[in-house]
């Protein structure tokens, strides 16, 4: 065993204990602390972080929805109504999740347009783009599956129409469709598997996002000039400069989402709910800043 291998030294003995066994602390320090961010990056470069926050928000709100959701054709709709009426803050969880899905796409579209406009898809970042396309496909699949879960008219016919697309494939089409549905029509077997897949795909997305980010970090971020960075002088450390920028965008994004959510969340969302939702939006913003604070404190222990 290589006892002489060079190990990063931190002030905090607990960090050292972990670092010696799994050099994950220095990894995070390198990738999210010292990571050289081009100085001239504008706010378009915050949309990756925004998308990540949204993904986590979707996963968390989804898990709490799933605690009260029943994937059965006879009970699914009622269980969603129960979430709206009886479950404590169920309406809030559902609005976060359904509006969050829409905003997830808006954010990702801006992120993609950024990549196209500034040429971030080009050498040496092609794999990044390809992984991004996979994320996008997975997102589409996930939200289609989620859309079927409340089992209302739109869900049912949405499931019918989309799965029927497969029947257009010559020869194998009908068979493939029946296999996807697990029945000759959209039914309970379909709803069950759609729920199972809707639960698991976001975690797959999370994994691919990890690869996507790791891939950017190999050659570094692109910048608005499209000219590759020449020296350390062209960059600033990710922490705190980029993180602060993301911290501004994050809460702003949340506010936009929450404005939309509180006005148009649903026809049921009368102005009485407005105050609650806005207050909640406010705390969401603040919660994000805690993230920054905790990183700051980590820095205080010689991070």
């Amino acid at each position, binding site marked *: 065993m290589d006892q002489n291998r060079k190990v990063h030294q931190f002030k905090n003995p607990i960090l050292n204990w972990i670092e010696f066994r799994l050099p994950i602390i220095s990894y995070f320090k390198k990738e999210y602390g010292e990571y050289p961010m081009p100085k001239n990056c504008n706010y378009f470069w915050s949309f990756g972080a925004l998308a990540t926050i949204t993904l986590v928000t979707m996963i968390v709100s989804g898990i709490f929805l799933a605690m009260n959701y029943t994937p059965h054709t006879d009970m699914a709709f009622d269980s969603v109504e129960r979430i709206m009426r009886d479950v404590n803050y169920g309406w809030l969880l559902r609005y976060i999740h359904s509006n969050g899905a829409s905003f997830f796409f808006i954010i990702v579209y801006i992120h993609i347009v950024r990549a196209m406009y500034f040429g971030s898809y080009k050498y040496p970042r092609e794999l990044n783009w390809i992984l991004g396309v996979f994320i996008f496909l997975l997102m589409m699949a996930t939200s289609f599956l989620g859309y079927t879960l409340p089992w209302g008219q739109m869900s049912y016919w949405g499931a019918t129409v989309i799965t029927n697309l497969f029947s257009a494939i010559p020869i194998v089409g009908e068979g493939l469709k029946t296999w996807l549905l697990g029945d000759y029509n959209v039914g309970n077997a379909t709803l069950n598997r759609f729920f199972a897949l809707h639960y698991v795909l976001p975690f797959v997305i999370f994994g691919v996002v990890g690869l996507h980010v790791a891939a950017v970090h190999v050659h570094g971020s692109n910048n608005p000039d499209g000219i590759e960075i020449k020296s350390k002088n062209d960059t600033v450390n990710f922490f705190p400069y980029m993180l602060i920028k993301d911290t501004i965008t994050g809460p702003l994004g949340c506010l936009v989402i929450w404005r939309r959510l509180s006005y148009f969340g649903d026809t049921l969302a009368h102005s009485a709910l407005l105050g609650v939702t806005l207050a909640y939006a406010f705390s969401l913003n603040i919660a994000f*800043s805690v993230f920054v*604070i905790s990183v700051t404190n980590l820095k205080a222990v010689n991070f």
Partner: protein
Amino acid sequence: MTNKTDLKKRDFLQLSTITIGAVGTAAFIWPFLKSMSPAEDTLAAGTTEVDISMIEEGQSITVKWRGKPVFIKKRTQNEINEAKKVEISDLKDPQADSERVKKEEWLVLVGVCTHLGCVPLGQKVSDMKGEYDGWYCPCHGSHYDTSGRIRKGPAPKNLDVPPYAFLNDTTIKIG
């Protein structure tokens, strides 16, 4: 302008940001945690009204309340006397019979053994009632008396008395 850091100001800013952040995080997490406690419909099912006019003396019925069995027994004079004459200091979980009933003849108990949660026997005429003529838990042998108090066996506590009220002479509301 000097380059000296105003440490007091920095401390103040740090502390106030952390405080606001902590409050914000708590407010953010609260709805998520709260969504896990019983929902409105579950709470609405938390009270049960029972018609007790059909219960004969010496008879006991079992009703469901919050998913648990509740025993409602109309005690005979013998059973009442038996419950009252016990020396309180002899009891493992000392409690007078009068503290456990609202009207002497009516005994209302949560039918869940205080040991590990089995449902004690004693509701049916043919059931074993244990050495103290009340209830007997077959799981590990706990004996309860005619006031539902633990007298022998591993259970640590008397059978619980649920919150209840007499709406009139023939109806009680549990919960």
